[in-house]
């Protein structure tokens, strides 16, 4: 059926509303138990698909298929505890459900009417199990605006999206509003681009709308490339229609009739859902010719990215879409003036689009009230690294890092000390503990040497070496440099070489000045955002953790014990019982010994993998700073013919 009017979507909404209402906590006497199984990428990788199929079969075996139904849904964000299964009514939240658990779950919950305690979330500190999502700390401080439909609707059903007021914004825009009004609303809402730089979205739309050249294009940047960031993926997987709707609205506002979604080919589930959603939308007449009976046509196509980080840069992305090498070009002209095939092109990030319909439905006044003075609304972050609850969260702008890391994220596992949090991916910086209480928004993060980026947050504890972290990110940036401009192609390589020198113990004090100097020059000179922000991890760690750099350079010592070239594993002769377990574990065959003699580690062969440390029953193997020791010294270490000089490089 082709939707032609608001009445048409109202009808669809009514049909699906009872299901949705029950999921939102209404006891509406539906007489149906709904089992929501997360089918995002994270849960899928821990066999949520098998769980779902098993559930369906089990229901059939028990003859419950009329009373209970299984639904796919989007990401709950609690990825650490996946696969997630949520059962309505009651909103019982089960974690880490294995296919083997299904039988017991059905038996107890559905047949017996009791909660299966064993699979409930257990609070680590209090050891209490809580059945309801509201009681879980992880969800308490969150406010889900962008992720409003993830975990609520089945992303593969357009009807469920419509039941959540989907496509009503589009209908309203097409039937009752003119484009200037909409742009004005977006401008007033204060929405800023969620891709990283935070350019005001309304301004971008206005610029694209003001161009006279036809045709125009709308592009969705779904080329999420930051290591450890996956908010765009989750939105596409859990709520694909919201992106389609927002792109259509954008097309109406700027006068475009064609949209492109540039999505990473490494996101197969997102691509599948998008394809399905586009098919459904076309079938329903929500994409294609004459939307809602007006003269406005709009359609959306795909372009797949091959995983180049630089293709997240808008001009490189546009090159990639038209089949050229993914390389940025200088701006101006901006894509809004000259984009795809030289035509005006509006390009926004997935998360930015996901905000559009909310703003139009709930009003810019409401949206503008969220967040801080300069940054409105909410932000989705993906938590990773040394943190209890890794996963996806959404908080209002201005939430402090402490709330995110310790309240929502549950703090650092193993009682370790927090050292820093890295935001903004390879373009961002490391933030030390003194800024934990800083309300975060675009400006505050920039001020302290990091940036919002797409929203990746990687937490580090005392066992992380900040020099090594800087090296890791720079390695990424250098590897992903497109090779066009000099500072990024050669400069980051030289920067990386200095860092490698330091982590391998060859650094000199003047290297630190050189690092800083070259970093500033790369930032000043690079063509695109990738190069301009590539030195950020170096600059921020130099700013806040200079002592670690100095320890590496002056004392040839890695305080966190990460930099392998500066480490040495030795056997404590007193403790060693000559059991030989370590020698058998060692893959490099670096450990030798004889019965009743203390074993020895050959530092030449040792790869510092620490497998022996874990294996030793007497904890006789210690990690230590590498010292200058002669051949067969007191500690029983063979220094090798080249002495210590050569060994610094592994």
């Amino acid at each position: 059926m082709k939707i032609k009017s608001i009445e048409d979507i109202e009808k669809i909404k009514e049909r699906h509303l009872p299901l949705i209402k029950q999921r939102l906590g209404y006891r509406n006497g539906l007489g149906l138990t709904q089992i929501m199984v997360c089918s995002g990428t994270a849960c899928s990788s821990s066999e949520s698909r098998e769980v779902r199929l098993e559930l369906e079969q089990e229901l059939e075996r028990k003859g419950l298929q009329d009373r209970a139904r299984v639904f796919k849904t989007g990401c709950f964000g609690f990825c650490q505890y996946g696969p997630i299964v949520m059962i309505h009514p009651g909103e019982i939240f089960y974690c880490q459900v294995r296919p083997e658990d299904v039988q017991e779950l059905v038996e107890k919950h559905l047949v017996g009417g009791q909660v299966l305690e064993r699979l409930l979330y257990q609070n680590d500190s209090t050891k209490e199990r809580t059945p309801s999502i509201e009681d879980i700390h992880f969800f308490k401080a969150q406010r889900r605006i962008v992720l409003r439909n993830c975990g609520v609707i089945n992303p593969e059903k357009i009807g469920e999206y419509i039941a959540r007021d989907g496509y009503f914004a589009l209908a309203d825009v097409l039937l009752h509003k003119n484009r200037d009004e909409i742009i004005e609303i977006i401008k007033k809402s204060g929405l800023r681009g969620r891709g990283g730089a935070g350019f005001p979205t309304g301004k971008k739309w206005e610029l694209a709308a003001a161009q006279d050249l036809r045709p125009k294009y709308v592009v969705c940047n779904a080329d999420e490339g930051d290591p450890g960031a996956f908010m765009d993926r989750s939105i596409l997987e859990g709520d694909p229609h919201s992106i389609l709707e927002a792109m259509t609205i954008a097309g109406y506002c700027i006068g475009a009739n064609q949209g492109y979604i540039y999505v990473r080919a490494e996101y197969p589930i997102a691509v599948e859902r998008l394809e399905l959603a586009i098919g459904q939308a076309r079938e329903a007449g929500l994409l294609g010719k004459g939307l809602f009976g007006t003269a406005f046509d709009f359609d959306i196509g795909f372009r797949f990215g091959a995983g180049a980080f630089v293709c997240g840069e808008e001009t490189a992305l546009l090159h990639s879409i038209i089949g050229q090498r993914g390389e940025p070009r200088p701006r101006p002209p901006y894509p809004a003036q000259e984009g795809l095939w030289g035509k005006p092109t509006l390009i926004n990030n997935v998360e930015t689009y996901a905000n559009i319909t909310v703003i139009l439905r709930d009003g810019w006044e409401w949206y503008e009230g969220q967040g801080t003075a300069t940054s409105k609304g909410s932000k989705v972050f993906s938590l990773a690294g040394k943190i209890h609850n890794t996963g996806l969260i959404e908080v209002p702008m201005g939430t402090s890092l402490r709330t995110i890391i310790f309240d929502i994220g549950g703090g650092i596992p193993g009682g370790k000390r927090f050292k820093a949090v890295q935001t903004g991916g390879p373009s961002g910086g490391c933030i030390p503990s003194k800024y934990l209480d800083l309300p975060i928004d675009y400006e505050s993060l920039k001020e302290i040497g990091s940036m919002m980026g797409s929203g990746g947050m990687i937490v580090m504890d005392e066992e992380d070496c900040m020099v090594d972290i800087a090296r890791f990110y720079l390695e990424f940036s250098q590897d992903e440099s497109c090779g066009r401009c000099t500072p990024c192609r050669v400069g980051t390589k030289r920067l990386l070489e200095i860092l490698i020198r330091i982590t391998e113990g060859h650094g000199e004090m003047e290297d630190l000045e050189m690092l800083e100097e070259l970093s500033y020059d790369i930032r000043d000179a690079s063509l695109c955002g990738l190069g301009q922000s590539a030195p950020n991890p170096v600059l921020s760690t130099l700013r806040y953790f200079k002592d670690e750099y100095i320890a590496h350079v002056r004392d040839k010592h890695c305080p966190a014990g990460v930099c392998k070239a500066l480490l040495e594993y030795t056997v404590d002769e007193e403790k060693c019982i000559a059991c030989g377990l370590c020698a058998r574990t060692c893959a490099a065959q670096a450990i030798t010994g004889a019965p009743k003699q203390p074993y020895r580690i050959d530092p030449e062969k040792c790869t510092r993998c620490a497998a022996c440390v874990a294996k030793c029953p007497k904890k006789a193997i210690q990690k230590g700073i590498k010292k200058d020791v002669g051949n067969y010294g007191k500690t029983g270490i063979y220094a090798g013919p080249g002495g210590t000089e050569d060994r610094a490089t592994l």
Partner: protein
Amino acid sequence: MGKREYMPGPVVRKTGQLYDNPKKDVEKIRLTIDGREVEADKGMSVLEAARGVGIEIPSLCYLRHINETGSCRVCLVEVEVKGARTLQASCVYPATAGLVVHTSSPRVRRVRKTMVELLLSDHHRECTTCIRNLNCELQNTADSLGIRNIKWTGEMKALQVQNENPYIVRDYNKCIKCRRCEAICSKVQEINVYSAINRNYDTVIAPAFMQDLSQVACIACGQCVIACPTASLTEKECIDSVWEALEDPDKYVVVQTAPSIQVTLGEEFGFPAGTAVTGKLAAALRRLGFDKVFATDFTADLAVLEEAHELLERLGGRGKLPLLTSCCPGWVKFAEHFYPDCLENLSTCKSPHEMFGALTKTYFAGKEGIDPEKIVVVAIMPCTAKKFEAARPEMGTGDFKDVDWVLTTRELARMLRQADIPFHDLPEEEYNTPMGTASGAGVLFGSTGGVLEAAVRTAYYLVSGQEVDLPDYEELRGFSGLKEADVHLKDRIIKVAIAHGTGNARVLLDRLRSGEPFDFVEIMACPGGCVGGGGQPIYGSRWRKEISLDYRHNRADALDRIDASKALRRSHENPDVQKIYKEFLGSPLGEVSRNLLHTYYTPRGKLPGFHFGGIKGSHEGHVEENIPPHDNQSMPRPEIAPKV
């Protein structure tokens, strides 16, 4: 000469920018550069605006209208714009009214220096032994920025130098990734040989799969060599072989110079572009020890006669029309790769320098009583494709190669320097006879439109028996990318067209394919014809002039002046040409000339070096490898190893 019709807008506009510098009335804007309020055209970049008022900003990757990408980041400037945190590449930053620019602030100078240091840190700095020593843009820039030591050092690439073809050497280790070669090859010539391969520090600008140029559809025009700011792309030198021949007492070494050499060689010795040094050139060659100094202009006259007769023959119904000229080897190779269906239209005439070689080893040898085996023919050419042409197996007579060695203008200049010949102080000398006499028409071969104009002058005479009113043809000159005209040949109007630069050639050839009725078409592979050839002096860096292609106009104008100054202006009037037909060749298109002066062509496919299921080349016809053998078994792969 009747009604002339010139190119309608779109085609000229396609690459017209490159060749035409129309004086348009553009809106002026005012901006502030380094505290000076200056005027500039609207639409200019900051770099152009600054250079226009004499403020020099160093640049490397910038090639006006061809490569404006802001890649090298050497032309960085500080602009006072709200929100501009970083420095901006002035070559792409638009000059707007009221803009405030600082081109030489301490920050700018520091970052600029870092950029060049970074480029140098990955550049094999063998300046003293480098072919581009003293004529290298990178060297000049480093010098003017005062770089005395390179702070940033590290891994340096050591990739294999590719020189398996007879015309161009690619040294990846000197490449600074400015991509000027890529831009000129894809935007001007539209051959698309080069592109970026790999990412990050491993980026190389290379033919597909880093193959040698002989393995891809490269037309050997050498425009990339002219565009290259360093010695990453150079002609394949054969100076040493020429020295060897000169030193061998048994050899009789004959040299010929292409028409355009006389107006370009001077640039290598500090003369302004467009200075004719014909007399000094002859003297210099004699000083080098060549036994005879001849001019290719002579065989150009000969080629005109052959070609004019061929045109009349084809107009008379024998052979395909239009007749396409064949004196440009880059264009011939282009047709063999991309337009094999046009090969039948190509004139069968060899190019003048090959005709010259063939006649030297037959006519001249016989006349002088010299064993042809002892004769070495050296050609001074504006061209790298001539090196390829000379290596074609079909370019020979009996056991002899027509031309033994081809030197570019640059190589000749190097030889003169090697021999310490004071070029400035040389007297004006004459060329030797008989093969040194030339008409003005032969001289015109050196720039675009010249071949056609020369042939039309003669064809007109052949048809009508009258001399044509010469100045009428001036409209065929000039640097429009494409020119068309209707020419009256007695009772018939023929449609002629001229294209230069293979990008323009494509437009014209596609129109031919679609059935437009042309009768006579001249195509030159290089923009501007031979005066813009890939073997000409590389302009711009030795005197740090603005890098553009405008100097080609000056060179072409000089050729026109030589033509105008000549008493003989039509090829058929050349007495030595008349003599050679009387004494040796018989008549144009006669049996002797068919044997010696004409050739055939081979389709080469678009991917000559690639094998698809055992079939070599593309689907477009059978491909024969005409270039010297090299190892096809294993694909040449550069070895990446750190340089010690």
